[in-house]
């Protein structure tokens, strides 16, 4: 691309000055504006799946994943000791349900529900998300069992609610049919009833997931190992 142009030094100094001032004004203006962070903002009500589908212009898979990244950013930061504590979990589950309806094949919403949002120290909020995972499991048990398996562990060890954990475990046992679902998951109820602590159970579950090839994603494996290390640290500090 070529254009007939005058050399830069032929331009009047006033023009250079005006350009520099306008650029400086823009940068100063933006620097003093409040940041558009959603970390501390309230989660807005969830749109319907139909509205999300319309907004996706025929790209529901991409829209579902971008919506998950958007959702992830609410009420979370590295320095926040209690992430997701202030989040409206009613709205959160509505969002997760809409995203899941947009792309029912994606495991992202249920993974985030079981592994991130259900781990909140607030028991009623945790129960709400666990029930969401349980409810959505029945739409596709062979694909969604891993989230419910983790939900069963949380119900037993965090909520200390053994009947709830057994209900989740029994659902996996009864409704999964695929040969890809590992045996330990199909015998989840026994696994729940065994007298073992949360760390041991989590270790066995992660080992089983890795061994069965249920984890295809490197980031997911890294995330789960990180969670396991957090659990080890927490239990070690609790034992002291």
């Amino acid at each position, binding site marked *: 691309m070529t254009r007939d142009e005058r050399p830069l030094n032929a331009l009047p100094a006033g023009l250079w000055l005006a350009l520099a001032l306008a650029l400086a004004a823009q940068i100063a203006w933006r620097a003093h504006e409040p940041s558009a962070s959603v970390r501390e903002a309230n989660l807005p009500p969830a749109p319907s799946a139909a509205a999300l*589908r*319309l907004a996706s212009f025929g*790209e529901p*898979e991409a829209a579902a994943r971008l919506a998950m990244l958007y959702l*992830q950013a609410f009420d979370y930061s590295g320095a926040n000791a209690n992430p997701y504590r202030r989040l409206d979990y009613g709205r959160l589950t509505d969002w997760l349900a809409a995203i899941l309806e947009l792309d029912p*094949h994606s*495991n*992202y919403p249920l993974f985030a529900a079981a592994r991130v949002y259900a781990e909140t120290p607030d028991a009623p909020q945790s129960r709400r998300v666990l029930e969401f995972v349980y409810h959505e499991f029945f739409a596709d048990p062979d694909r969604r069992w891993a989230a419910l398996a983790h939900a069963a562990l949380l119900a037993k060890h965090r909520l200390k609610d053994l009947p709830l954990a057994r209900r989740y475990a029994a659902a996996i046992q009864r409704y999964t049919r695929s040969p890809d679902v590992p045996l330990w998951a199909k015998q989840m109820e026994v696994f729940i009833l065994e007298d073992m602590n949360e760390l041991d159970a989590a270790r066995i579950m992660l080992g089983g997931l890795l061994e069965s090839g249920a984890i295809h994603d490197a*980031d997911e494996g890294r995330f789960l190992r990180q969670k396991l290390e957090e659990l080890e640290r927490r239990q070690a500090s609790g034992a002291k």
Partner: protein
Amino acid sequence: MPALILGRLVLVEARRGGLVWLAALALLAGIALSAFLAQLAITESRLLQAAVVAALLRVCAVFLLAAQVVASVRREIDDRRLELMLALPLSRAAQYLGRLAGFIALGFVLAIVFALPLLLWAPAAAVLAWGLSLAFELALVAAAALFFAMSLGQVVSALAATAGLYLLSRSIGAIQAIASGPLAEDSLAHELARRAVDGVALLLPALDRVTRTEWLLYGTPDARTYAPLLAGMLIYIVLLAAAGVFDFARRAA
């Protein structure tokens, strides 16, 4: 064939006009976005990258091609080169179709270039199905943009009409689903609106069912699903070409 010379000129103009740089920039933006997204995802990062980059590249390819077609044709008309061409011993249909063939070839090149990076995250068969579908989709966009650029007087109106047709075609399935949803009220006005939406859908290509990101993530469609999708686009390309030739034949010299 003399008409093919017109097609070749289209490709030469695109190469000299900077389209190559714009396509390279779009690819770079896609790869940079994928690297950014990989940092944010806690699971399915490969699927996330494939889905978002495919959606971005698809839109970029459509926008670049539509803008190229409209700008090229309007420049030809405004510089009165079209009138000169009309004086050549070549039928109007051959002139129109020759240009369209050039733009379609350009669309195929763009589709190949924009599909290749997806091999980083998706299997080759899925990328092939996606890329071929994108090539047909771009051919349809080229035919629409050429039709509107020839028949409408201004660049802005031609671009707006092409974008409107494209976006409506991609969202008409969702609009129909909303119109016939279980919560829709049961009244005469609503029934009329629903039938109007169905009527509009009959006049549009089903672009919401083609070039599916789903193919890259969850597996390629079988031939019995895939072939009718390509056939549907081919029919619409022929319709747009016929409408364009019809309009061009009516044009006063």
